[in-house]
């Protein structure tokens, strides 16, 4: 423990994260970056452990931070309190096993949305490797994001005896649409059962954790994600034909995100407002099906697919849009609507998402109700007062939605599991910076 400048106690946090999936989903990376930065700004020290990308040269954390950079806005460099520990060398011995590297590469990079069983092996191995990190660095608490980090966190706890906080951003139920991978489910459940405390990104997700995984509601704390406003939000002069209006879907084109409902709604909208342009940005396994359906509906001239977009393109896409639609079937949080709002784009979000808990000035629909969705898209494009009110009120709301607020709530959780709080310097314990166990 250290004293912070303001006299409060600082904690050392060992955080296990995962790199961006190489698609546009990006929510997890963005969230981890915003969170760690806010924790560091509050005086805590974060050691952020990520498995390094196979085949990439040099420190992958640079790539990670650079990647979160664009999503988080203007943050150009990691804060002083964050150390990124890529776990690559410990993994090497295992990689020597036959075919493992190939499997790993395939599973992680080529089809991240569709994890195969070889990934499970890899996660276990990564976990063991991460245990070694726990011996090297001092920490007071373990904070692990997502099921992928669970074995690592459990190893670290075994090594150190420090409490383990499991942060759930999405569940296998959200991702799979009911077609649950039992291996992943088992790891998730183990994490939820063994964690000293669980953090869920929404009450929506907390409800699932309690109902589907049988976890005591008392054990789960909800900490909503935040979003940081970047300068870039206003920097894009977008060239658009006069009167052209763009309705945007941005995200993985997978079952979870409900792209089919967007396509069907588009057809309905075009039947009454023929001049509207629809854009589906992102990639995913349902993309070919969507392209086919658009062609079948004969609206190819008004409906466009951009494929996967990267940093600057994402921002430009938001800035060019008049309306953002997220018809997700099951969305634990959904940070993208907040990002759209940073560009003053009004949003329609599905009621089956966690973000509705914090976003009050948005239109909401049940994802399956294509008529309602289409009707609201028409209304948003027709009644200017509607979007004006939503955008103005959302600006106020977004200003209050800071990572600092989330970091405070996370601090409270740390306090509970470590017994170290309150962080006011009055409750010092005999813990030291020295790692306790060395073997």
């Amino acid at each position, binding site marked *: 423990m250290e004293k912070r400048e303001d006299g409060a106690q600082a904690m050392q946090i060992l955080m296990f994260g995962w790199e961006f999936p190489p698609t546009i989903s990006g929510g997890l990376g963005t969230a981890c970056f915003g969170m760690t930065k806010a924790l560091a700004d509050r005086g805590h020290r974060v050691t952020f452990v990520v498995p390094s990308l196979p085949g990439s040269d040099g420190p992958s954390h640079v790539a990670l931070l650079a990647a979160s950079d664009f999503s988080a806005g203007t943050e150009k460099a990691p804060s002083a309190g964050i150390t990124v520990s890529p776990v690559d060398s410990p993994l090497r011995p295992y990689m020597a096993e036959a075919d493992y590297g190939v499997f790993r590469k395939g599973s992680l990079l080529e089809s991240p949305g569709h994890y195969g069983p070889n990934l499970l092996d890899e996660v276990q191995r990564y976990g063991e490797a991460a245990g070694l990190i726990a011996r090297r660095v001092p920490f007071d608490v373990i904070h692990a994001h997502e099921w992928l980090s669970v074995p690592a966190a459990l190893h670290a706890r075994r090594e150190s005896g420090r409490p383990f906080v499991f942060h759930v951003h999405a569940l296998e139920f959200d991702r799979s649409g009911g077609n649950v991978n039992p291996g992943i489910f088992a790891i998730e459940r183990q994490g939820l059962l063994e964690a000293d405390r669980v953090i869920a990104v929404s009450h929506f997700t907390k409800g699932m954790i309690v109902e589907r995984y049988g976890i005591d509601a008392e054990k789960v704390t909800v900490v909503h994600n935040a979003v940081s406003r970047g300068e870039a939000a206003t920097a894009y002069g977008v060239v658009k034909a006069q009167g052209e209006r763009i309705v945007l879907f941005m995200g993985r084109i997978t079952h979870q995100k409900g792209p089919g409902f967007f396509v069907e709604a588009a057809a309905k909208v075009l039947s009454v407002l023929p001049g509207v342009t629809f854009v589906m940005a992102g990639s995913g396994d349902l993309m070919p099906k969507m392209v086919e359906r658009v062609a079948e509906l004969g609206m190819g001239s008004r409906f466009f697919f951009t494929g996967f977009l990267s940093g600057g393109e994402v921002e430009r896409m938001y800035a060019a849009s008049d309306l953002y639609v997220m018809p997700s079937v099951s969305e634990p949080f959904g940070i993208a609507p907040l990002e759209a709002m940073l560009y003053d784009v009004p949003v329609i979000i599905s009621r089956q998402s966690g973000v509705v808990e914090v976003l009050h000035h948005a239109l909401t629909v049940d994802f399956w109700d294509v008529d309602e969705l289409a009707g609201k898209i028409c*209304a948003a494009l027709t009644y200017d007062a509607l979007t004006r009110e939503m955008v103005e009120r959302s600006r106020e709301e977004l200003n209050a939605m800071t990572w600092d607020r989330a970091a405070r709530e996370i601090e409270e959780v740390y306090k509970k599991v470590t017994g170290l709080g309150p962080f006011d310097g009055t409750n010092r314990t005999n813990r030291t910076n020295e790692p306790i166990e060395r073997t």
Partner: protein
Amino acid sequence: MPSVVLNLHAHLPLRLKKYSFFDIGHSQDYFDGQESRQVLERVAKDSYLPVNACLLKLIRRYRGRFRVSCSVSGMLLEQLEKGQDAVLESFRRLADTGCVEFPAGPWHHSLASLFSEEEFRGQIALHRRKIRALFGQVPRTFRNTELIYGNDVARIAESMGFRVILAGGEGRLPGCDAEALHRPARCRKLKVLFRHDRLSDDLALRPAGAAGQAPADDEFVRRLADGYHGDEIINLFMDYETFGGHGQNETGIPGFLETLPGVLLKRRNWRFSTPSGAAAEHEPAGEIDVPGPIFPAGSEKVGLTWPGNHLQVDAARTLYGLEDRVRATKSRKHIGVWRNLQASDHFRHMSTENLASGAGQVASNPFASPYDAYIHTMNILKDFSGRIAGKTGVRP
């Protein structure tokens, strides 16, 4: 001799249908009759009937010393006539005692005073005629929608022959004594009574005790009774739904409606008056000049003040912008629809205040959100505007 002027206000709008953008040009079904009937049934049972029974009991018990005024909107009277005879009858019986006054207001509980004098006058005249027909009295007291007040409202009320006007917003008028009666600027006969916000709210929001006889209520009423000795007028204006609905006790009536008159009337110097009675007995304490319209205190909290948010302003502008065209149709049906769309409730449901804390979601909002309320209203107006332009079935 302190007087209590108790005014109870009853109004229910016709609920709007969930009217989709795709209904425009296809459906003229704007109002949800079934839903409106169900709400009316519920409120009648929880509030109108028990409160009226209680009032009748008080009038009989105190042999005329208990007096009260009941503001019942025209829109509600119309709904009562179509299927709530018992409620209508209970109002009639109150009227027959001679101790109950029925003030008039805009029939449709509209914001017409802010947008169209012609329409405002028309709706008041309608309501006045109806009260005369139903209750056999010519209203001399005027109560504007939401107690909105201003010099213009007073001028119109006086020119229409009203003698008293009930108003809100005393807290916004520095130097205005709510416990006295005032003369509106440039009026000769009209007198204005301002709602006593503190006492009205205190009473309305008091948690109801068991069996209507909570000691706390008696204590509160005793303190009230001890506090006044002169010629004060205490204007207690509240909604019928204050009694029944939320916060009710087993009898459905908060203790104070049953206990307050008893405690006060036991003291010889207190009395209950109708607005007209109070106006006849008191001279104005001074003139009150209110150039622009004012809303009662707390109206921001319930989501209606003017100018409102973008949604409210746009919807109102669209609605009242149709006035000339609606009149030009000379169609009873179109004018009726247009007027039913004017109920202030529809605008209140568009309030985006305090959404995060859930406070903006007034219990009576039939829509999931203010944005939905606005969308459905605008869809209806778009269809309606197309219809009065004679383009039935064609998208405007």
